[in-house]
């Protein structure tokens, strides 16, 4: 490679993987996270050994006293001594060896640091494009999320390998406003493009992903016969068949159960399933409850019932009958939710937290069971739980579904999918702004991590403990990242990378609200002028003038 060297090897660093080199670096190219290489002969073959810059120390510091007047830069003082400015800058750079890239093995560390005095080169864009990520943008399995942060925009495009995170899961972690949802949008766009045609679903508690529908009108998401489909399921369209709830779900949904009620509920649940099988209705469950263990038929509707049973029925009714999502017969068919080339947005806004959790738990359970049954040949075409393709589910606000220090109904199914999902082609992506509040097992099982700016020390510590693949040097960058900058590590890239997220093709649905602008708009509004007029009129005319009531309507 023809470029001039940027620096010269000084010697070993603190760890066996580190080495140091010295450079005047007049163009400031040796940034933190930048990639450099040295040449070494490995098995008789000349190889570029890549490394990442982790530290930069100036070697020639102007004496402190040169800086005693803030208006006079120390270089100006050095000018006085006829010291040439260009000669003053000299840096010691520490780089961590990644190794040379082997198609089959990935990065192989040669375990030989560079010779002292060996030249160090800045890795050319083309080399990095080839070795940093396995996937090439636009090709099958490539999720082009942006470009390498240390290079100019788009100089080194970075694509995640979808086969990585669709088998061993994904986590997107960052403080609020760092750009998680934006990145998730980019990932979904990539998954829906003609080269991927994925079957994805996004759990959207804040209804911010419906702008993805724009994909349907964008030629980037069409190719020949193919056209990406976006299906937005509004909260009022969500349906959960009560018989898809398991006992745990029921216990979780019904408030304040006593020990006795728990017992009765469990008994009734077993009985109703024995009697009616997989599909039972709310009425059948109530009857089963009232019949008691003896199975005494309920004949007289006015008959005194046991106080515990009565209270239980009352709780059951209050949850199951008054919620719009539960019903006796219909679940949203899995094949409506998951289909290659379709992105389903499941909006959960306006649904109470516990019901959201139940919706997610039942859905994930159904998905996982269907995939298991289909893979094992137990489900056939036309069966309700026949799903002959893998599916990927993105979960926003994941800490609500797998909280730390608490086992809720979703935790179990999520953990099961995280540990066994790859066998059956079920994968999940967790998005959370509070990693500290997310179950640490859950987080550590997501083998591809996208970590954006994190300021809170508790959250930083959680990330550090759960995410092994990101080195300490990169974790130190977390608070310094800006919006739209992400550290990607794990199974979908060849080495941890700092990436600048690309622009969305569709509009972002969660723009920050601009309160001052909205207040201002209120005053510009015609209605406001009308109100002013109304106020200004003499009292007798208020009735007929457009008054407060009209305005507030």
């Amino acid at each position, binding site marked *: 490679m023809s470029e001039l060297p940027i620096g010269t090897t000084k010697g070993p660093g603190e760890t066996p993987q580190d080495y140091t080199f010295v450079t005047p670096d007049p163009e400031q190219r040796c940034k933190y996270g930048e990639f450099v290489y040295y040449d070494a002969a490995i098995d008789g073959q000349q190889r570029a050994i890549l490394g990442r810059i982790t530290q930069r120390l100036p070697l*020639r510091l*102007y*004496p*402190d*006293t*040169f800086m005693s007047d803030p208006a006079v830069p120390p270089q100006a*003082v*050095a000018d006085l*001594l*006829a*010291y*040439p400015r260009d*000669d*003053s800058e000299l840096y010691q750079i520490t780089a961590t060896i990644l190794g040379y890239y082997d198609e089959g093995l990935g990065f192989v560390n040669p375990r030989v640091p560079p010779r002292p005095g060996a030249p160090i080169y800045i890795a050319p864009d083309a080399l990095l494009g080839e070795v940093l990520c396995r996937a090439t943008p636009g090709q099958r399995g490539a999720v082009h999320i942006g470009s390498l942060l240390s290079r100019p925009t788009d100089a080194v495009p970075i694509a995640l390998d979808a086969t990585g995170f669709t088998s061993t899961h994904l986590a997107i972690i960052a403080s609020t406003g760092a750009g998680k949802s934006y990145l998730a949008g980019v990932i979904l766009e990539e998954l829906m493009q003609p080269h991927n045609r994925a079957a994805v679903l996004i759990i959207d508690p804040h209804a911010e992903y419906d702008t993805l529908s724009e994909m349907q009108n964008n030629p980037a998401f069409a190719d020949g016969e193919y056209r990406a489909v976006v299906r937005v399921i509004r909260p009022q369209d969500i349906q959960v068949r009560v018989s898809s709830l398991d006992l745990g779900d029921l216990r979780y949904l019904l408030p304040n159960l006593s020990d006795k009620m728990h017992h009765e509920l469990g008994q009734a649940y077993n009985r109703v399933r024995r009697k009616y099988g997989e599909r039972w209705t709310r009425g059948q469950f109530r009857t089963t409850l009232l019949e008691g263990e003896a199975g005494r038929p309920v004949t007289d509707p006015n008959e005194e019932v046991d106080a515990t049973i009565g209270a239980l029925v009352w709780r059951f009714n209050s949850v199951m009958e008054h919620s719009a999502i539960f019903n006796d017969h219909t679940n949203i068919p899995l094949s409506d939710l998951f289909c290659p080339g379709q992105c389903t947005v499941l909006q959960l806004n306006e649904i109470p937290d516990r019901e959201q959790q139940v919706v997610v738990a039942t859905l994930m359970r159904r998905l996982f069971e269907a995939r298991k049954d289909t893979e094992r040949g137990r489900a056939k075409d036309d069966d309700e739980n026949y799903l002959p393709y893998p599916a990927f589910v993105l979960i926003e606000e994941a800490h609500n579904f797998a909280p730390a220090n608490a086992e809720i109904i979703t935790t179990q199914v999520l953990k099961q999918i995280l540990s066994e999902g790859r066998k059956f082609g079920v994968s999940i992506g967790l998005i959370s702004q509070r990693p500290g509040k997310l179950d640490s097992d859950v987080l550590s099982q997501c083998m591809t991590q996208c970590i954006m700016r994190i300021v809170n020390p508790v959250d930083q510590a959680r990330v550090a403990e759960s995410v092994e693949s990101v080195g300490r040097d990169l974790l130190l960058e977390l608070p310094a990242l800006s919006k739209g900058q992400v550290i990607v590590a794990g199974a979908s890239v060849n080495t941890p990378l700092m990436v600048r997220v690309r622009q969305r093709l569709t509009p972002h649905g969660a723009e920050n609200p601009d309160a001052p602008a909205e207040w201002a708009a209120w005053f510009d509004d015609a209605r406001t002028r009308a109100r002013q007029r109304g106020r200004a009129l003499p009292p007798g005319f208020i009735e007929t003038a457009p008054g407060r009531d009209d305005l507030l309507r």
Partner: protein
Amino acid sequence: MFIGKIVSASSHIDYVCQVFAKGEAEVVPEPSDYGFGQFVAIEAADGSSLVGLVHNTSLLNPEFGNLGPRLSPHEDLAVFAPDYLSEQATLVAILVVGLLDAHLQARQGVPSIAAHPDARARALARAEIDAFHRAHGHLQMAYLPLLTGLQSALAPSLLEQTFALLSTLFPADSARINVLRANVAWRARILPTG
């Protein structure tokens, strides 16, 4: 052209040379011929010469401080007292850094032979400076530790001046020289001033 003769040595490589005054040589040397940092050759045995650098100057003047009565004005002395010898002299210190033999073969570093008293010193011509520094076609400065080891406030300036001279003689090596020059300048100018 000779600049003077060796009158003393404080070490095997550090000589004192008395600059020829009027009447002592056919051509009286110009101050630039024995200036600070000038490369000089001192005659040695079998046609070889010691190569050195002027690194200091001092003046000898017995009349300094002698304010006693004098018989005639200074200008008239030659007329009235022709046997009166001027005892004023300019002395330059020469640091020997190597040897050029009769065939212009250079050997840098401390030479095995020494100069004898009264050996004459002359300014080195450019071609000789070039020959002294060229090894396998490239610049060599194996004697540099002798300069850096010089216990003198003038040592950094001597280095800088030598680097500057050699940069012009060896433009192909100027990048290498510059690395050393920048370092010396930083340590000599910036650090002590701060």
